[in-house]
């Protein structure tokens, strides 16, 4: 169903650079010698470790349990011995508690036999519990625990599941390859999710620059369910869940509300494939597909990586840096975070690793604001980044709140279009951190 009218207003069109890895088949990364599992890999409270130093763990064993409802457990992604529970560099740029496991050499790395019940025979509660125990989180980057999306409160009836196959961030091809290579898993994921939510309809939104993914998903559409594919115009940040709802259904999620308040749940295709995998193989979320790309890496590709693999091991498996590699970014180039340490582990929320070369990351001088208003035309949530930026520079955080700083999702569109190269989104990241701190204090 080609659509001209399905879109959202504002947004930007950065060059997508997906050609580096879009046609590279997914391959499996060999088990590294050591894995590091941070206790915080999801939105919500960090997990609580249940193993001790010296313990032997099998692949798939729970090593940390969910701390409360808004949390997720963590499983060993390889068989081995717990070397330590200690502070370790975290992708967010801090040292955070993590479980370090020495991986057993010459191990078959078999999963401990798990009883995998047929999902069709399970009740809704049992399904949600199985997803929760498998530690599944949203794999699109925010790492929101999946079981919470599966269990909306009764006062918010869900009528539509929106499946996010946009992958609007440049460079990344994780979801793209998932849809091309595992369309059946995505469909099974949709089926399970629909039965949990009691929703009647699912719409898969895929951007038009992925024709092979659209073909694969269309080919596998189930006959007995109301699932449709919508090919969308290519635009950033279409994959942001509130904007995708606007694009696909024409519904607006009010500020401060969640998609469930308008009867919608949005889930990313990779997360759906993982949910399906839980019931297909009994595998908890212990590995994920990561795009390793950029002109600073020798062999870009899409890899199945055990969660907790150190960045160094992953880059080595991709041929290492080229001579002009300059910056390593976790996530996409628009919203990703630059990394300072090659020992940081790949977490559940790491969608991609981009190694930018010298000419891909020119740092440019920043000039004064000329009030051209380009940022206002780019902001997908209709804020005024120009005013917000000058308030941030002046440290007037309360006034920023009055200008709806909380609605800013840090997509970086304003920074992308700014002719004066003002690092607006970085100013907003800092301002949000400061606002949080002042509220706590």
């Amino acid at each position, binding site marked *: 169903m080609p659509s001209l009218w399905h879109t959202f207003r504002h947004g930007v069109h950065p060059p997508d650079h997906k050609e580096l890895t879009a046609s590279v088949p997914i391959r499996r990364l060999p088990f590294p010698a050591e894995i590091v599992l941070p206790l915080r890999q999801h939105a919500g409270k960090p997990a609580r470790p249940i193993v001790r130093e010296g313990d032997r763990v099998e692949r798939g064993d729970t090593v940390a349990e969910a701390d409360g409802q808004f949390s997720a457990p963590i499983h060993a992604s390889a068989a081995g011995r717990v070397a330590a529970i*200690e*502070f370790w*560099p975290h992708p967010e*740029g*801090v*040292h955070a508690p993590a479980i370090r496991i020495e991986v057993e050499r010459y191990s078959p790395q078999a999963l401990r036999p798990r009883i995998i019940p047929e999902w069709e025979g399970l009740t809704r509660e049992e399904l949600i519990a199985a997803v929760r125990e498998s530690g599944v989180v949203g794999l699109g980057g925010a790492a929101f625990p999946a079981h919470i999306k599966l269990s909306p409160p009764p006062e918010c009836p869900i009528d539509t599941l929106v499946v996010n196959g946009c992958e609007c961030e440049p460079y990344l091809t994780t979801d793209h390859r998932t849809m091309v290579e595992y369309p059946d898993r995505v469909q099974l994921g949709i089926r399970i999710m629909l039965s949990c939510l009691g929703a009647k309809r699912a719409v898969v939104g895929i951007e038009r620059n992925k024709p092979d993914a659209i073909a694969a998903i269309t080919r596998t559409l189930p006959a007995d369910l109301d699932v449709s594919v919508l090919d969308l115009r290519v635009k950033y940040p279409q994959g942001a869940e509130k904007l995708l709802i606007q694009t696909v259904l024409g519904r607006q999620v009010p500020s401060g509300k969640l998609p469930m308040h308008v009867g919608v749940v949005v889930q990313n295709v990779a997360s759906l494939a993982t949910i399906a995998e839980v019931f297909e193989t009994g595998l908890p979320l212990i590995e994920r597909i990561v795009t390793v790309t950029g002109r600073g890496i020798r062999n870009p590709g899409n890899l199945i990586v055990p969660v907790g693999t150190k960045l160094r091991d992953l880059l080595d498996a991709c041929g290492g840096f080229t001579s002009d590699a300059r910056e390593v970014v976790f996530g996409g180039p628009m919203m990703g*975070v*630059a*990394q*300072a*340490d090659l020992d940081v582990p790949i977490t559940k929320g790491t969608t991609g690793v981009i190694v930018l070369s010298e000419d891909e990351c020119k*740092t440019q001088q920043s000039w004064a604001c000329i009030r051209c208003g380009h940022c206002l035309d780019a902001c997908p949530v209709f804020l005024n980044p120009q005013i917000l930026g000058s308030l941030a520079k002046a*440290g007037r955080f309360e006034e920023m709140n009055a200008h709806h700083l909380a609605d800013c999702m840090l997509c970086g569109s304003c920074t992308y279009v700014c002719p004066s190269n003002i*690092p607006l989104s*970085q*100013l907003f*990241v*800092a*301002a949000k*951190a*400061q606002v949080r*701190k*002042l509220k706590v*204090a």
Partner: protein
Amino acid sequence: MNPGDFLLSAGILGGVGLGFALLIALAHRRFYVWEDPRLEAVSQMLPGNNCGACGFPGCRGFAEELVTGKTSPATCTVMSADQREEVAELMGVEVGTAALRVARLLCAGGRDEAVRRAEYVGLQTCAAAAAVSAGGRGCTWGCLGLGDCARVCIFDAIWMSDNGLPVVEPELCTACGDCVEACPKDLFILMPAEQNLLVQCRNLLDGEPATDVCRVACNTCRRCEADAPGLITIRDGLAVIDYDRYDLASPAAAARCPTGAIVWLEGRQFPEASIQLEKAAS
């Protein structure tokens, strides 16, 4: 135009003006609020920085509390001793006492001491760098050295040393707490000026991993614990001083520390930065 029109318009305007004047005069009587005349006088004498060090909302807020006798003139740490005397004289109260506090930095890892893992080329503020892998610092707890604290200090009591650390001038610091709020790493504390013993480190790593990222980090060797039992204990990878038992403190504890994380401060923190001042002066 005949002169009658002119007089009429002047009369009407004058009448309306008079009427409103009367109203205002009546309203002034009716809604008069008595205000302590000392309030205005005291407000005039206060520094007017509105720094908030006293804990009240601005200088006016402090003056109101002062006039009602809920606080003493000494609570304002910005005024000089003479000014405090003057205020006390005007109010007819004792100056009172308040512990003099200064801002101290819980980090000594400057450019020479702390390891850098990567080069940071973004917005040159601490708040921005903190969001990008701690600005490339090996120790993610430590000072980022981009001077957010020096920029917010309205008393110019903080300057950045060549080593990339903020130096607080104890004579100028009023303990207003603006730097405490500004630091994204929460490295500033306000402590009584007469207390000299300080653990200037927030690194929670133990042993070698700690000293690998910073030469002056606390590596939890426990020598301080043995030397001053009860005063210093190791808690969660860091030496912690129990200031309730401060009477046990002596420079010996600082001398025992092999990395220099524990110091005995007299006057300015980071005395080596003083060389820079002398150079600048000459």
